[in-house]
């Protein structure tokens, strides 16, 4: 083994070290240490002469190890390693002892500090003897660059790199690039229009052959290492084909949904389908769609509730009705009798009342009638096969309509005299007038459904002989199940279905004064209300369960009670008491816990049994199969019966079903029949998939109750069957529809699709993930404005006319919500404005730092105000005026000349309580004017808050993806605040712009260009050096436990399946040593921190 010859160099570091540590003494001490050939002391070891000392000594004294006792290795280890390498010995034969940060800077006792320094030097000398000649690695560099963020920083970086001939992927999460700079009005101090100087750059980016602009996208995952990264980028679904869209903006004009426009900071509304700004790049529309609104998910028949409500809110009643009919017929019926599962799921119920979705549907159906309904156009028959539907109730008609829309000729066979089933014969006219049913049936006939009334069909086989290729059975369950009590066969006991049918058919039905109805569903309640109208004076509804368990709709029960109908819950029937050929009463049994079993008698002349509905098996063919409960048996998914080609749905299959559920069942059968007839698999893809849930922001929603439905007064209802609920008028309907929260934003009403001429809209688009290979990444995620609502005393969002800076930018901007006219919320021009500096900045409670640009942009606002409103009084409330550099101080002087009033003081409170007449209807800013030492009250019309700059929300996500360190306030941490504000601790990842710290546009552009230069330097070198101080796994000792795999913070360790051992990728490894300590088999060594080296170091300290 060759002799170890060590050179030791003690640095004074000016007086940083020498003031506390006696460096001469330490140097003498070093000379006496083993294997030390030469020891020197110099004032600045890192300087040229200092480094030359080392290099000369290496040559002349044939040194093969070097120790430098100076500052932290973080500072100058690379410097000395390079020097040593230059002189011809391996750079890892070098060790640095930190006698500055860890000695002279932290101790005051000179004697003890000197002793400590000696110990540290001895430790380094002892250690360095065991160093190995490690080799650093070199990797190649992929010339592509990923830029995250499309604001001015990202744009500048991208253009610089692209102009140099290299490829850039520019990822921006918004639909357009431009960032915050695109929102500004003018820029200080030149007062250039922000958009004018930005848009040429934006256009260049859009057109540059070397820039791949990935807008509306986010970086999800990055793997790899410097020079060789792989990035997974999520491209959010735009629902617009960018290759076809021409940016004509017709789609946003027809879109009924209006939400807050983020580009105008909430000062205006935009449509769900929109183009972000007049200078968007790419100039393509985007559809803001969160998912599917809960009301749509809840509807069993898939009616687009959100869509038609949105259209009604915009006054587009015909389009709303068309949208309903895209899913179901019978809008006027459903709009009156549906049990509305959509309203239960409506998100608005968590604020105040759910939207009255059902009655809005009724409104548009009635509106069509009111305006004079034109005959509907017949649908084209495109299929050869014809289908038979038996039963013209909701399930049959829904099935028929869907089949007709698919191109089949459909014939509906109805045994009754008129079509409609229970809609006509089961629901009383005061709830569902007959003419409504007539109108809806007419509509279906006009569209092409053939309905044969008075035609019963008992023989299905005959239908097939007649040429029908498939049959749908929607015959319902129209038989009243018996009560099962003695006395019920008396003629004065009516089955509810028979009773209602007779009344609805116009037959004369007589009821006695006292009527008892048994049952708890809508049929029972409606029977009671019919009986009251027929003249009964005392009507009671009995139900065996409690009121909260009653299946009848709450509003039905409420109206019945209004009409004087009594309810006895938790009461069952034991016997019907006969008196001759009449009945005298009902023997009841109390079912409540407290009085269970107690019997009592209710007087009654009639009993109406509304207990349950059964299927009339005799009316159906014998070959049909029935379930145990007595209903028709069908496959639950396909609705196919046991007879081939025969499908069934609705109440004949399910017993009691709500109208909308019956219709859903008919629609499902139509789908099955279509597949059956076209030879497709009936079952595939039928199982339901639950859509994703998402958050709905309700922060800004003001409580506003549901519009009350006008109803007929109780006295006006007596003795007649006039409709009780009168329906909304236009105003009430639009008002009610306007309460919709637009949960999913886009409602898929499809109006945009119809309006788009180039056919660019595709609502079936899904988000995609693409993978790109890059060598370096520049993060430029930008800023966000501090929200001053937390500063209660400033009254933001409590008072009108207290604005943030960004809001004022939009107000002043010619393309903003007021076309650049500065007005108060009430439309009047302000005569006085106060601009408050340092809102959220320089504040112990929020951000301690200064946001750097606010003084300048506050001056800019003052200038814009003076320009637009010549007589306006402007107050600037400042702590210090920070206008550094060229042009800024001059701008400040200019504003003083323009007559702006500067008050040195931080505003304490903004109040609207006047103390004197001049303060009436004004916002009073209370401030201590520190220069005149007086407390002042400044009455103004408008207040602008110059808010702090914070890192953008997107920074959190990208920070996690790239494992970037952050500073205390959330901005990304640079490698060195003075000498390297562009690099991060992660090699190959650079930062630029406000994501690193608040700064103005010129500094941002400069930093962006610097980041580009750094990336280009890497590319131009085409290689990157990777530190050789890494860890290694000794395969023979590795047991394959894989504990180290999960511990590695750099994901550098992987498991080799075939060799059954773990392996470290030396390029990713940073030599941190976590795996070394974790390994239970002691199989990992850190090659620059071996046990021998560490023990030697310890011995040196203790010597």
């Amino acid at each position, binding site marked *: 083994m060759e002799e170890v010859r060590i050179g030791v160099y003690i640095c004074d570091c000016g007086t940083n070290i020498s003031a506390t540590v006696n460096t001469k003494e330490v140097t003498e001490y070093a000379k006496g240490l083993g294997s030390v050939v030469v020891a020197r002391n110099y004032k600045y070891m890192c300087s040229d002469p200092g480094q030359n000392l080392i290099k000369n000594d290496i040559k002349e004294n044939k040194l093969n190890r070097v120790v430098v006792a100076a500052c932290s290795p973080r500072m100058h280890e690379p410097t000395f390693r390079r020097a040593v390498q230059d002189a011809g010995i391996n750079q890892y034969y070098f060790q640095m002892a930190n006698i500055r940060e860890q000695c002279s800077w932290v101790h005051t006792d000179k004697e003890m500090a000197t002793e400590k320094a000696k110990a540290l030097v001895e430790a380094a000398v002892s250690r360095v003897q065991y160093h190995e000649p490690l080799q650093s690695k070199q990797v190649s560099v992929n010339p592509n660059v990923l830029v995250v963020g499309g604001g001015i920083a990202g744009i500048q970086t991208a253009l610089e790199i692209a102009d140099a001939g290299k490829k850039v992927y520019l990822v921006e999460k918004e639909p357009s690039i431009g960032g915050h700079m695109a929102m500004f009005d003018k820029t200080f101090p030149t007062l250039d229009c922000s958009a004018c100087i930005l848009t040429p750059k934006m256009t260049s980016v859009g057109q540059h052959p070397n820039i791949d602009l990935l807008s509306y996208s986010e970086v999800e995952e990055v793997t790899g290492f410097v020079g060789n990264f792989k990035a997974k980028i999520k491209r959010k679904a735009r629902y617009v084909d960018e290759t076809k869209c021409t940016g004509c903006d017709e789609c946003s004009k027809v879109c009924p949904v209006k939400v807050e426009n983020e580009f105008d900071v909430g000062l205006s509304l935009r449509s769900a389908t929109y183009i972000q700004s007049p200078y968007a790049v790419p100039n393509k529309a985007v559809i803001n769609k969160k998912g599917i609104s809960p009301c749509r998910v809840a509807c069993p028949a898939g009616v687009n509730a959100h869509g038609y409500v949105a259209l009604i809110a915009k006054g587009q009643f015909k389009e709303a009705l068309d949208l309903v009919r895209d899913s179901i017929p019978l809008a006027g019926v459903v709009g009156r009798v549906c049990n509305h599962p959509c309203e239960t799921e409506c998100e608005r119920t968590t604020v105040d009342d759910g939207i009255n979705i059902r009655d809005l549907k009724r409104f548009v159906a009635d509106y069509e009638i009111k305006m004079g309904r034109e005959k509907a156009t017949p649908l084209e028959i495109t299929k050869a096969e014809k289908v038979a539907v038996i039963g013209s109730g909701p399930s049959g008609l829904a099935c028929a309509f869907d089949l007709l829309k698919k191109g089949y000729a459909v014939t509906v066979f109805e045994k009754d005299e008129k079509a409609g089933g229970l809609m006509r014969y089961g629901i009383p006219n005061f709830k569902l007038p007959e003419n409504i049913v007539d109108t809806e049936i007419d509509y279906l006939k006009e569209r092409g459904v053939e309905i044969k009334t008075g035609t019963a069909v008992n023989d299905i086989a005959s239908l097939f002989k007649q040429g029908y290729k498939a049959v749908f059975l929607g015959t319902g369950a129209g038989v009243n199940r018996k009560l099962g009590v003695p006395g019920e066969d008396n003629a004065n006991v009516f089955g509810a279905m028979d009773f209602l049918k007779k009344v609805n058919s116009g037959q004369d039905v007589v009821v006695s004064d006292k009527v008892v109805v048994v049952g708890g569903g809508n049929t029972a309640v409606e029977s009671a209300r019919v009986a009251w109208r027929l003249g009964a004076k005392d009507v009671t509804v009995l139900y065996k369960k409690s009121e909260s368990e009653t299946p009848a709709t709450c509003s039905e029960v409420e109206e019945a009670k209004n009409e004087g109908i009594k309810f006895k819950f938790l009461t069952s029937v034991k016997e019907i008491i006969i008196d001759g050929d009449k009945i005298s009463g009902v023997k009841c049994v109390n079912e409540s816990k407290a009085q269970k079993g107690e019997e009592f008698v209710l007087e009654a002349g009639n009993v109406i049994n509304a207990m349950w509905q059964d299927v009339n098996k005799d009316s159906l063919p014998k070959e049909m199969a029935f379930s145990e409960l007595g209903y028709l048996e069908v496959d639950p998914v396909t609705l196919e019966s046991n007879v081939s080609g025969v499908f069934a749905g609705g109440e004949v299959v399910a017993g009691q079903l709500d109208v909308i559920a019956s219709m859903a069942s008919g629609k499902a059968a139509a789908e099955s029949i279509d597949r059956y007839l076209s030879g497709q698999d009936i079952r595939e893809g039928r199982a339901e998939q639950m859509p994703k849930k998402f958050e709905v922001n309700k922060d800004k929603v003001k409580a506003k109750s549901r519009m009350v439905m006008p109803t007929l007064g109780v006295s006006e209802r007596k003795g007649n069957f006039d409709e009780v609920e009168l329906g909304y008028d236009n105003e009430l309907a639009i008002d009610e529809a306007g309460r919709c929260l637009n949960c999913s934003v886009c409602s898929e009403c499809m109006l945009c699709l119809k309006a788009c001429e180039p056919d660019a809209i595709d609502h079936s688009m899904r988000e995609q993930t693409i993978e790109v290979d890059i060598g370096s990444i520049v993060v430029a995620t930008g800023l966000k404005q501090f929200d001053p609502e937390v500063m*209660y*005393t400033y009254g933001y969002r409590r008072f009108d006319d207290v604005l943030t800076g960004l809001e004022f930018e939009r107000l002043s901007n010619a393309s903003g919500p007021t076309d650049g006219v500065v007005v108060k919320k009430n439309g009047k021009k302000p005569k006085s404005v106060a601009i408050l500096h340092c809102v959220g900045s320089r504040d112990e409670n929020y951000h301690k730092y200064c946001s750097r640009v606010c003084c300048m942009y506050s001056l800019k606002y003052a200038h814009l105000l003076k320009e637009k409103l010549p007589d306006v009084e402007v107050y600037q409330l400042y702590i210090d005026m920070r206008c550094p550099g060229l042009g800024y101080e001059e701008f400040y002087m200019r504003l003083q000349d323009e007559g702006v009033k500067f008050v040195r003081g931080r505003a304490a409170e903004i*109040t*609207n*309580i006047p*103390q004197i007449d001049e303060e009436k209807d004004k916002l009073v800013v209370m401030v201590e004017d520190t220069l005149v030492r007086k407390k002042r009250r400044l009455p103004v019309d408008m207040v602008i808050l110059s808010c702090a700059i914070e890192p953008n929300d997107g920074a959190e996500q990208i920070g996690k993806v790239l494992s970037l360190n952050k500073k205390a306030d959330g901005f990304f941490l640079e490698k060195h605040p003075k000498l390297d504000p562009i690099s991060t601790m992660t090699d190959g990842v650079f930062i630029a712009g406000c994501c690193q710290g608040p700064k103005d546009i010129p500094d941002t552009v400069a930093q962006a260009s610097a980041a580009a230069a750094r990336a280009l330097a890497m590319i131009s070198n085409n290689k990157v050096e990777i530190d050789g101080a890494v860890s290694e796994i000794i395969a023979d000792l590795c047991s394959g436990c894989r504990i180290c795999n999960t511990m590695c913070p750099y994901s550098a360790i992987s498991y080799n399946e075939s060799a059954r051992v773990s392996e470290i990728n030396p390029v990713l490894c940073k030599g941190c040593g976590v795996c070394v300590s974790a390994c239970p088999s002691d199989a990992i060594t850190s090659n620059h921190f071996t046990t021998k080296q560490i023990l030697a170091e310890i011995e040196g300290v203790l010597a």
Partner: protein
Amino acid sequence: MKSYTYFPGCSSEATAVGLDISTRAIAEALGIELKELEDWNCCGSTPYGSLDELEAIAVAARNLALAEKTKLDLVTPCSSCFVTLNKARVHMMKPEVKSKVNQALATAGLEYNGSVKVRLLIEVLMSDMTTQKIAAKVVKPLSGLKVAPYSGCQEVRPRFGFDDPENPIALDEIVEAVGAIAVPYASKCKCCGGSAVISEQDLCLQLMYDLFKNAVESGAECMITPCPLCQMNLDAYQAKVNSKFNTNFNLPVLFVTQLIGLALGLKEDKLGLNKNIVKPNKILAKYL
């Protein structure tokens, strides 16, 4: 039934008799036991503290020592007593203070070991009782009564307070729990003048004028407050405000406990309403 040791405070026997009567009455109605601290003495409040700090702590600590024996929380309706007793409690955590004061207390056979919790009545009603339980016991909802809640300054102090200093809502919630309307008004956090009304009457009259004006303009028919000093200022000096500013404010200022008592169906004699200077009988007529 939750029990507390009750510290009435001196004003309960003088200017805030109404507060004491109504507090005891509603405690009974709400099912809370308030056991009056036996042999309690004046807490010292601000006057004693300005004379001798250590003696002031001792005077207050005597009450703490007595209360400690009961092993229950010490509840007081008076904001000033609350702060004084709490400050004494905190001072007594310092070993040098504790030893000296306990020396003095020892002469009366007492000792304070630091285990008493001092609480404000309103805070007890909000957290231990909860407004939901109070609402459930309401017999006569005060529907239609427009009340301006005035919380005073002690409830919102940073150290011992429990409500938001910029926008306190505890009293609003109580008002709503009893069925009345809590009128939002901008001056709700403005000072009534406190004890400065004695030395700087004109200044304080101005403050009270601003308060009344804003409350009335916002639609209030009456005000409620938990603090005896606020109540006294706003009630007793209302006439002076009227004569100085040529106004005719007739705004009854009730203790919050009186309002709660009304809603719980208690009668006038249980609420001490006859002790209010600005008579509330007219506006409360329909609820009595």
